[in-house]
C-alpha cells in the first residue's frame, strides 16, 4: 500500500458481509416476519443454506465467532437433533417451494461433529426442504480434528468444497494464538483431499497476528503457495479484547502495528498474484480456473455472510445458533446462546432473536456497496438520488478526498477503485454508508 494511503486505512471498517451490518439488528423482527417471507418463496427460487456448528475442541484466542469449547459430545448430539427440528420447521412452511442450490457448514468447527451426524443434517435437509446432487456442498474444517477417511466420507456425502483454517504456519505465531498445527498435518489433509478428487480447496490465512513479521509471514505464504489451494482468503485479525474475552489471552504488545499490518496485507497480495492467483474482491484469491475467479470475471460475484461467493441465490436460510437468514430485504438472526436457541426450537418456534427490515434506501446503498466490493467499481447515482441533499454533499466530498488521494477515480456517476487500491475498498464503502458517515470517529479514518 502506498504510504500516502495509510491514513485512509481503518481496521475498524465494517466487513460489509451484510448491509446494514449485524450491529444494527434489533429485536423487532419476529418469527412471524420470517414466516411471512418464507410464504413468499416461489417453487423454483434458489435457496442458499447455511448451517452453524458452534462447537470447537479447543479455544483459538483470535477467534471472533460464536462458538464454545464443548467436552461432552452428547451436547453436540442434542444440538444436531435441534438443528433437524429447526430445518423441519422451515420445511413445513416452505411446503416444497424453493430449490436448495448450496449448503455451507460453518462454525465453530463443523467437523467437531461426527461424520454420521453431518450426514444426518444433510438427510434432514433433503427430506424437509429438498437436496439434489446439483447443490454445492461446502464445509469448514479444522485439520486437527480430521480422522482417517473423514475426507473420503465427506466427499461421498457430496461435499465438493473444503475450507481449511490454516491461519499461519509459524510455530511462534501458532503458540501465541493457541492453535498448533504442523505443516505436515496440513500437507497430509491436502493430499487426502486431492486423492478424493476435490478440486475446490480453500485456505483461510490471517495477518495482524501476534509475533508475525514480514519474514515469518513470507515463509507462511511460501508454504501456502506450495500446497496450491484453489482459493485463499486473507483476513486481517481484528483485536477487540473489550468485546471478545478470549482475545485477552493475546499479548497486545506482540501485535503488528498499523504499518506492519498493511505491509503484511500487501505482501500476501503480491505473493499470491505472482503465484498465479486472481484477486477476488479485497481479501479473496482464486486460481484462474476456479469457480470464484470465473464468477469475478463474468461479473457474477456476490457478497454474503461467508465473504465473496459465486452463489447466485438471492435468499439465504441460516440454521443453528446465531445463524442469519436473508429473504427479500429481511435479515433474521437466530438466538446466539445455544440453550436459548434450542429451547425455542423445541417449543416449535422459529428461534429468531433479532434482525432488520431493509428500507428502500438501505437496499440501494447495499447494492452500491456490494458492487464496489465485488467489481471494484460502482454507480453512485441511485445512492445520491435517495440521500438528503446534505448527506449527498457529505458523501461526494468524502469521495472527492479519496480521489485526491488516488484511491478512487470518478467516471461520470461511476466510482472506480484505482489499481492496487483494492485493500481500501471497505474505506470507500464507508464513504457511501450513511451509518459509517454518522459515526463521530469516521473523520479520523479518512
Amino acid at each position, binding site marked *: 500500500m502506498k504510504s500516502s494511503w495509510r491514513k485512509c486505512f481503518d481496521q475498524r471498517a465494517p466487513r460489509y458481509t451484510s448491509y446494514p451490518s449485524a450491529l444494527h439488528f434489533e429485536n423487532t423482527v419476529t418469527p412471524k416476519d420470517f414466516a411471512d417471507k418464507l410464504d413468499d418463496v416461489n*417453487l*423454483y427460487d*434458489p435457496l442458499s443454506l447455511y448451517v452453524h456448528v458452534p462447537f470447537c475442541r479447543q479455544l483459538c484466542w483470535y477467534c471472533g465467532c460464536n462458538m464454545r469449547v464443548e467436552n461432552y459430545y452428547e451436547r453436540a448430539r442434542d444440538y444436531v437433533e435441534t438443528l433437524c427440528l429447526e430445518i423441519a420447521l422451515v*420445511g413445513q412452511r416452505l*411446503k*416444497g*417451494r424453493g*430449490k*436448495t*442450490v448450496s449448503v455451507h457448514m460453518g462454525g465453530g468447527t463443523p467437523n467437531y461433529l461426527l461424520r454420521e451426524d453431518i450426514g444426518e443434517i444433510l*438427510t434432514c435437509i*433433503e*427430506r*424437509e*426442504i*429438498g*437436496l*439434489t*446432487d*446439483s447443490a454445492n456442498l461446502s464445509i469448514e474444517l479444522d485439520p486437527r480434528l480430521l480422522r482417517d477417511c473423514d475426507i473420503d466420507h465427506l466427499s461421498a456425502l*457430496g461435499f465438493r468444497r473444503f475450507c481449511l483454517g490454516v491461519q499461519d504456519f509459524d510455530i511462534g505465531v501458532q503458540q501465541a494464538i493457541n492453535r498448533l498445527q504442523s505443516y505436515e498435518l496440513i500437507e497430509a489433509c491436502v493430499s487426502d483431499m486431492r486423492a478424493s478428487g476435490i478440486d475446490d480447496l480453500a485456505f483461510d490465512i490471517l495477518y495482524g497476528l501476534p509475533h508475525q513479521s514480514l519474514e515469518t509471514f513470507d515463509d507462511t505464504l511460501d508454504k501456502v503457495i506450495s500446497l496450491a489451494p484453489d482459493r485463499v482468503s486473507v483476513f486481517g485479525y481484528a483485536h477487540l479484547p473489550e468485546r471478545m474475552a478470549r482475545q485477552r489471552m493475546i499479548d497486545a504488545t506482540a501485535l503488528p502495528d498499523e504499518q506492519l499490518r498493511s505491509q503484511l496485507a500487501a505482501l500476501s497480495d503480491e505473493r499470491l498474484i505472482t503465484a498465479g492467483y486472481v484477486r477476488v474482491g479485497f481479501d479473496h484469491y482464486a486460481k484462474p480456473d476456479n469457480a470464484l475467479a470465473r464468477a469475478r470475471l463474468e461479473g457474477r460475484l456476490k457478497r454474503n455472510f461467508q465473504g465473496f461467493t459465486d*452463489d*447466485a*441465490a*438471492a435468499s439465504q436460510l441460516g440454521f443453528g445458533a446465531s445463524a442469519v437468514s436473508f429473504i427479500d430485504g429481511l435479515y433474521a438472526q437466530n438466538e446466539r446462546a445455544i440453550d436459548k436457541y434450542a429451547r425455542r426450537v423445541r417449543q416449535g418456534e422459529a428461534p429468531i432473536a433479532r434482525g432488520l427490515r431493509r428500507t428502500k434506501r438501505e437496499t440501494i446503498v447495499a447494492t452500491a456497496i456490494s458492487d464496489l466490493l465485488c467489481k471494484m467499481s460502482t454507480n453512485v447515482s441511485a445512492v445520491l438520488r435517495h440521500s438528503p441533499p446534505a448527506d449527498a454533499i457529505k458523501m461526494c466530498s468524502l469521495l472527492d478526498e479519496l480521489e485526491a488521494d488516488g484511491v478512487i477515480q470518478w467516471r461520470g456517476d461511476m466510482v472506480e477503485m484505482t489499481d492496487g487500491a483494492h485493500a481500501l475498498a471497505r474505506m470507500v464503502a464507508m464513504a457511501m454508508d450513511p451509518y459509517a458517515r454518522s459515526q463521530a470517529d469516521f473523520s479520523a479514518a479518512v
Partner: protein
Amino acid sequence: MSASPSQAKNCIAPHRPTSCDLCAVRERSICADLGARELAQVEKTMARRTVVKGHALMEEGESNDTLYVLVQGSFRLTKHLEDGRRQITGFLFPGDFVGVRPTEASAYTAEALEDSMVCHFSHKFLEAIAEDCPGVKDRLIARGQTEYHKAQDHIVLLGKKSAEERVASFIEMVAKSIGETDEDGAATTPLPMPRQDIADYLGLRLETLSRTLASLKKKGAIRDISRHSVVLVE
C-alpha cells in the same frame, strides 16, 4: 444429453396424418370432446411431427404460438434457475399438452426423452376456427394435462415429507398416464427418463432415490425394477 441451441429445434418435416380417426390417443383424451365438424376443421390445420430423442420442441425464452399435443413418446420440461442451474419441472406423456397460450417467451424447454410424435396446432388457426366453433380450444385440451397441471403435480410431490412418499407418488403419477396392466395383473410403469432426472424432479439425491426404490421393492410395493420401468404389485 441436451442438444445444442443450433440443432435443438430440429424436427423432422411435417406430414399430415391421413385422418385423425386413426389417432391412437384420440379416444383417451385429445380431441375427444370435439364435434365432427370441429374435428374436420381442426384436422385441416393440424400437422404431426416426429421429434427426435434429445431435441427440443420448444425452448425456454423463445416465442411460441403453437399448441402441442403429445401423441406418442415422452418429454421432459426444464427451466433455467436464476443461478444458471437447470431444474426439471415436469414430464409429458401421450395426451398431454404444452404451449397452451401463445407467448413471447416460453417458460420451459420441452425436450424429447425418446423419439416422439407431436401434433401441432397453430393458435392463429385455432382462433380462426373459434369464430365458427366457440370454445374449441378449451374442448381440445379439456381432458389432457397442460403445463399448468404439471406445475400443480410438482408442488404436491415436493411437499411430501418422506423420500418414500415422493417416489411412490411419482410412480403412481406416471402409472396413471402411461402405466400398462398385462393379463397376469402385473402393472408395468415405463420410466423413460434417466434416474438423475427423477431425483432432480423430486428434490432428492440420486443415491437416496436408488435406496428408496430398493426399499420399496424390499417392502413388496414394487415387484421389479429395471432401468426404464417398474412393475408394481397390484
